[in-house]
């Protein structure tokens, strides 16, 4: 039930937005995430955006992981 799906905000009208879920368009509420902007990727749970997915933080995580060594033996 705590699953959330990523969507991209295409257009904002008041407290609702048109968002793309992998190409499928749905209307979502921004009432819980008023700072969301057009072009943001957001986590959507039960029709409400609850968090902006920060691409810079994602890149930082992946960059740190690039330094992870694998098994010593292949």
């Amino acid at each position, binding site marked *: *039930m*705590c699953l959330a799906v990523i969507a991209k905000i295409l257009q904002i009208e008041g407290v609702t937005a048109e968002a793309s879920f992998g190409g499928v368009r749905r209307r979502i509420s921004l009432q819980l995430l008023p700072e969301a902007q057009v072009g943001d*990727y957001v986590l959507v749970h039960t029709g409400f955006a*609850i968090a902006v997915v920060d691409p810079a933080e994602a890149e930082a995580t*992946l960059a740190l992981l690039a330094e*992870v060594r694998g098994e010593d033996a292949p």
Partner: protein
Amino acid sequence: MTWPSLERFRDPALGQRLLGEIRRLAEHLTRPVTLMEFCGSHTHAIMQSGIRQLLPPQVRLLSGPGCPVCVTAQADIDRAIALASRPEVLLASFGDMLRVPGTTHSLQQAAAEGASVQVVYSPLDAVALAGQHPDREVVFLGVGFETTAPGVAAAVQWAQARGVRNFSVVSLHKFTPPAMRAILEAGEVRLDGIIGPGHVSAVIGSEAWAFLPREYGLPVAVAGFEPVDILLAVRGLVRMVVEGRAEVVNAYPRAVRPEGNPAAQAVMQQVFAVADAEWRGFGVLPRSGMALREAFRPWDAWARFGVPEVPSREPPGCRCGEVLRGVLTPPECPLFGRVCTPEAPQGPCMVSAEGACAAWYGYGRGEEAHSAH
């Protein structure tokens, strides 16, 4: 138009490298460690990706109470079914609740016998239903943790602002930290670290878990739901155990901020007051539930219809409560896979998409399920 980096958090090569590092770190452990994944969605992701079996034997994962449908008390399920059976009521619910066995029947069976039950994706859909059915009383069955409660609160505010009077909510919403605390206070299981719930933490903030290291000396790693996210959290926890540190690590920083989502918290607090709540497997936990505030009394289903008095009894033989406390793994329940299957679930842990029994049955019926004593 999926999110560009998502695939990289599913990259098996990256996962293998993290597993390699976890194995190397685990060599420094002086004893086996048990990490609890609080969240049922984590349990499913862990079982689906096979992470449980891939981890070194010194690192054990244990499912926690993070399945809102599962922790809903039997009495509350029976009350919801009784409410749905009133002729004027149209009960709107998330789909997971429908097949949960009540004492005598489930919501789905009540619907087959004539009760009006409608599955909705969003609580806003339930408010819309009230508009479409002005002659009915639309009651939304509010189940969920801090991820879900703000949306339900927003729906109540929406109904209030538009004067929708034939809409009300049964709030069975719960806060997650009290359940974590209850497990630690009970001391039935020894835990060495907690994989924190990613989407609950997106709302309440990673710092909401600071009491775990501070009061219990337990490390926490808040995790996302892709395999790389979960391995990143496990690596962080094993590393802290090896180094003798206990902190809150945010292993899901792309979605979780230390302070969480203040707007969502504000809406939740405007509508819900902290109340005691009964949890399956735990009994009544003080200050663990959300009740509609006095100002929203017209939208409180219990205030409007009264709390139905229904004799309740947990399903005979079902060990869901112990599974939720981490005392038992699903295959240790005598009913598991024999009389209790997803087709004929005896308790909610086998029904819900987040239930540990459903996850073990769906993905984990191999060697490990049978070898678990």
